[in-house]
Structures are given as structure tokens and as C-alpha cells.
């Protein structure tokens, strides 16, 4: 296990470096002078010169990149052009709302998605399965922002049960977390069903049935436990999807999170914030996948030996 851990960790470092390089080059790929862009539209020539010296733009690209890495490691991400706050501060304020939203969305969608998938697998071909799979493919095809708007229309505008948006008590979480999790629940249901059906065909399940294990035991002990192993990997991948989905859902519900910050920053061309956010989102995604791979190796020893 230790050997696998080391191999997997060392494999992640080049990917993280490459991601950082992409994000670093991002500002350099923009048309125009990076110093002018970072200094903002109202900057005087003195400001621009100061920014240029500060960013070390006169030095070789490799040196600039190394400096960018060391600055990033110390969380010195520059200042927002729009609010003049430091980027680290800005992201710090917005971090918790997005984290809570994604965690709630993930929690309900995994439980419901896996539940529906197992029900479908057990009742394969019957009406329960058909209804569940129609719901699942509809969930995958449903535009999240449309669902959000329809829910606001029904529960906030017409019934007045829940707030239309904003951050606060549990009432504020219901609609955004439901909206964000729907597509994930649908993907989980489809995937769990096919994993379940696949395991049902295994020899050891037939053996269990043949030796007279009751159906309940066959499902819970022999089939489900094995079917859930690939589901772990999918959960990790879906987390990345949720981070992306949060960008849209936060816009619908006026949620003060990282996603809305990113959208506002792109609209305002606030490049220091955009750069930091893209780096943060990507690193989160890479790290979550790493954690999932490690978990996967814990439950499935076969992986470690490859």
C-alpha cells in the first residue's frame, strides 16, 4: 500500500505543475500587455510600470514561473482589479458557501442515486426499473439552470415557502442543493444499476444462490458490496462535475460562492481573480481524484499490484 501511495503521489505532482503552468501562461496568452491587464483599466502609466516591476515581467519566463509558484505557495495571489481586496481574502470569504453547497448536494445525490440504482438493478425489467431509468435519463438531460428557475418559480414566487436565493439558514440551502445534485443523482443511478447488473452475472453470485443463501443476503452481501466498488470512483469524478455545476447554480440562486465570483470576474475581466480561481478549482479536482484513487486501492487490493 505504501508503495502504491508513493507512486500515486509522485504521479500527481507533474499534473499539478502542468496545471499551474497552464494557469500561469493564461495571463501571458491574453492579447495585450499583462501588466496593463493586471493593473486594470484605470491604471496610470506609473501604476503599470510598478506592476510590471512587481510581476518581474522583464525577467525570463522560467524565472517568472518559478516566482509564480513560490508566490502561490505562500498564497500571495495578487489583488482584485475590481475591489482591490487581496485575492486570497476574496477567495477565503467565498470558500465556505461553495464547500457547504457541494457537500450537501453530493450527500443527497449519492444516497438517492445509489438507492435508485440498486432498486432498479433488483427489479430489473419491471415497472420500478423502467420508471427509475426514465427519471435518470431525464435528470441527465435536464439543464440545471432551468430546473433552478422552475423551482424558484414554484416554491418561492408562487408558494412562498422558500427564499428565492442568497445565503443564510437551511431554507436557503434546499433549492440550490437539490438543483445541483439532480444530475449527479441521475448519473449515479444509471451507473449503480449497470454495476449491479454486471455483478449479478458473476459466478460467486450464482454459487451463493445455488447453496441457498436467501435473496436478501445475495443482494446485500454478495452483490451490493462488490457493485459499489466502481461507484466510489464515479463519486470522485462527479465531485469535479459538481464544482463546475456550482458555477451555474450559484448564478441562478445569487449564492455568494466561488462560482459566482468566477462568473463576475470574467465579466469584469478581473484577471488575478480568474487566474487564482481556475488554479484552485483544478487543484481541488486533481486532489479529489487522488483521494478517490487511494480509497479505491483500500477497498480493492487488486489495484495496488498493477
Amino acid at each position, binding site marked *: 500500500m505504501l508503495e502504491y501511495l508513493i507512486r500515486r503521489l509522485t504521479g500527481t505532482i*507533474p*499534473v499539478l505543475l*502542468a*496545471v499551474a503552468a*497552464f494557469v500561469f501562461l*493564461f495571463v501571458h*496568452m*491574453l492579447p495585450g500587455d499583462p501588466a496593463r491587464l493586471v493593473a486594470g483599466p484605470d491604471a496610470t502609466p506609473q501604476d503599470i510600470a510598478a506592476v510590471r516591476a512587481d510581476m518581474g515581467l522583464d525577467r525570463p519566463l522560467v524565472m517568472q514561473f518559478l516566482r509564480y509558484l513560490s508566490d502561490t505557495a505562500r498564497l500571495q495571489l495578487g489583488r482584485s482589479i475590481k475591489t482591490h481586496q487581496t485575492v486570497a481574502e476574496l477567495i477565503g470569504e467565498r470558500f465556505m458557501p461553495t464547500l457547504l453547497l457541494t457537500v450537501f448536494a453530493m450527500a443527497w445525490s449519492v444516497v438517492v442515486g445509489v438507492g435508485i440504482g440498486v432498486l432498479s438493478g433488483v427489479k430489473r425489467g419491471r415497472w420500478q426499473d423502467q420508471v427509475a431509468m426514465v427519471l435518470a*435519463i*431525464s435528470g*441527465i*438531460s*435536464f*439543464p*440545471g*439552470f*432551468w430546473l433552478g*428557475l*422552475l423551482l*424558484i*418559480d414554484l416554491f418561492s*414566487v*408562487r408558494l412562498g415557502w422558500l427564499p428565492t436565493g442568497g445565503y443564510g439558514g437551511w431554507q436557503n440551502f434546499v433549492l440550490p442543493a437539490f438543483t445541483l445534485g439532480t444530475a449527479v443523482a441521475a448519473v449515479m443511478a444509471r451507473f449503480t444499476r449497470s454495476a449491479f447488473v454486471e455483478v449479478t452475472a458473476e459466478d460467486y453470485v450464482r454459487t451463493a444462490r445455488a447453496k441457498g443463501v436467501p435473496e436478501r443476503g445475495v443482494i446485500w452481501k454478495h452483490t451490493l458490496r462488490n457493485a459499489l466498488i466502481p461507484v466510489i470512483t464515479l463519486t470522485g469524478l462527479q465531485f*469535479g*462535475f459538481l*464544482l*463546475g*455545476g456550482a*458555477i*451555474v447554480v450559484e*448564478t*441562478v440562486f445569487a449564492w455568494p460562492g466561488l462560482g459566482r465570483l*468566477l*462568473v463576475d470576474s*470574467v*465579466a469584469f*475581466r478581473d*484577471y488575478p481573480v*480568474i487566474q487564482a480561481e*481556475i488554479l484552485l*478549482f*483544478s487543484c481541488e*479536482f*486533481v486532489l479529489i481524484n487522488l483521494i478517490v484513487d487511494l480509497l479505491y486501492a483500500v477497498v480493492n487490493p487488486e489495484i495496488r499490484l498493477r
Partner: protein
Amino acid sequence: MSDLALAAPSLRSPAAEFWRRFRRKHVAVVAGCVLLAMIFAALAAPWIAPYGPATPDYDNVLAGPSWQHLCGTDTFGRDIFSRILWGGRISLTVGFVSVAMGGLAGVVLGLISGFFGGLVDSLIMRLMDVLLAFPGILLAIGVVALLGPGIDNVIYAIAVFSVPVFARLVRGSTLALKQTLYVQAARSIGVRAPLLMLRHILPGTLPSVIVYCSLRVGTSILTAAALSFIGLGAPPPSPEWGAMLAEGRSYLGVADQITLFPGLAIFITVLAFNLLGDGLRDALDQKLR
């Protein structure tokens, strides 16, 4: 189904065999017909749409559905049904063009990567890993931030994140096909690498590529609409479906038709592509199931 296949070994051409299997997937056939109708409606929008996409009717502002305006009108009295037909041109173009671009690049990279292996393979695949390290819509937002908003840039943005999906898929099939007897035989009589890849390996990878194309077009349309909705895609006067939804936001409970119908159009289109993709997968490729 499987015992039937055993009884009658397939003497049909691959196309006929595919059609025989696909025909039985009634849901997918219906989805395909819906899509054909939508493509036709989008192409014929200038002739069949009752109004122009930007024609205002100030006597009928925010009107509900009626015989005069099938889906009602928006804040400027523009006919929503006509705008949806015109918007279909945008959404379908974005879907098809971005998947064609991303798919082509991905197929070429995947073929090269799987066929040559070694250093080329490692380089290409590491690059794909990095692209996959960015969640799809984030990559698209990055590209839009770089190039500026607009529908052309949305197409590039979505094409970029389709590339690694196709590259991985094709690389996998290429690795398997490279070992098959007929490819080895072709190689042994001196068929050169480009021809080997194009004529002998590429056709074998196509079934799974076609399935992914259908699924990706749906995803692309959804992403494009999302980008327009958050204001990074098609600019406001455009009848893009996501942009129309964004306009309807302020009129929830007052004029629901602005939100309802464009959203329904996105949902039906994406659902049809997904159902078609599922049906194609069952009919074309047993391994993908």
C-alpha cells in the same frame, strides 16, 4: 436475442446488421426522428417561423400563449416560438461544429498515440490528463475569458474539452486493434503506417466514436446554453436558448413563458441526443454496454 444470433450467423453487411438492431430500439428511433424534425425546423426557420427573431410587437408585450403567439411573447413583444426556432440554428450549430472539431482532433491524437506508443503516446496522454484536470465548464470559461464572450468562442471552448474524451477512447480501441490478426497481416505485407491507421484501424474505432458523438453533442448544447445563461456565450439580443432563459429570470411568476419554453427546447434536444446515443450504443457496440 443472443440465441437468434447463434442460429443465423451474420451474413448481412455491417450497415444492414446495424440497421436491423437499431430498428428494434423504438425509443432511440423516436429520438432520432425528433432530432431530424428539429434540424429541419432550424434549417427552415426563415420560412416557417411566423415572426422574425427580433421583430417586436409592442401591443403584445409579455403575452401568454395564444393562437397568435404559440409560446407567448417576451419583454419586447418578440414571438418566443419564432425565437426558439431561430435559436435552434445556434444551439445545433454549436453542438455539431464543436463536437466535429473536438472529435476530429481527439480521434487523430488517439490514433497516433495508440499506434506509435512510446514517448509520443506518453506526451499526448499526459497533455490529455492535464486537460481532463480542468472540469469541463471551467475550461470553457477559461477559453471564453481568454478570447472574450461570443458564440464562436463558445464553440472553440467546448471543442477543447471534447478532445481528451475522444483521444482516450480512440487510443484504447487502437491499442486493441493493433494486435488483431488482420492488422498484423496488413503490416506484414508492408502497408505503411498512415494507410494502416486510416484504412485498417480507424474503421474499427468508429462505432464507439459515433456513440460518443451523439452523447457529446447533447452535452455540448447543454454547456453552450449554460455559458450563454451566465452571460459568457451569445450576447442578449440573440435568440440563443440559454440567453433567452437568462432574460426570463426577472419575470418569474409574471411571464413564465419566457423561462418555460426555451428551457423545454433545451431539455427535449439534449434528451433526444442522449436517448439516441444509448440506442446507438446498444445497436453498434456490444462492448460499451
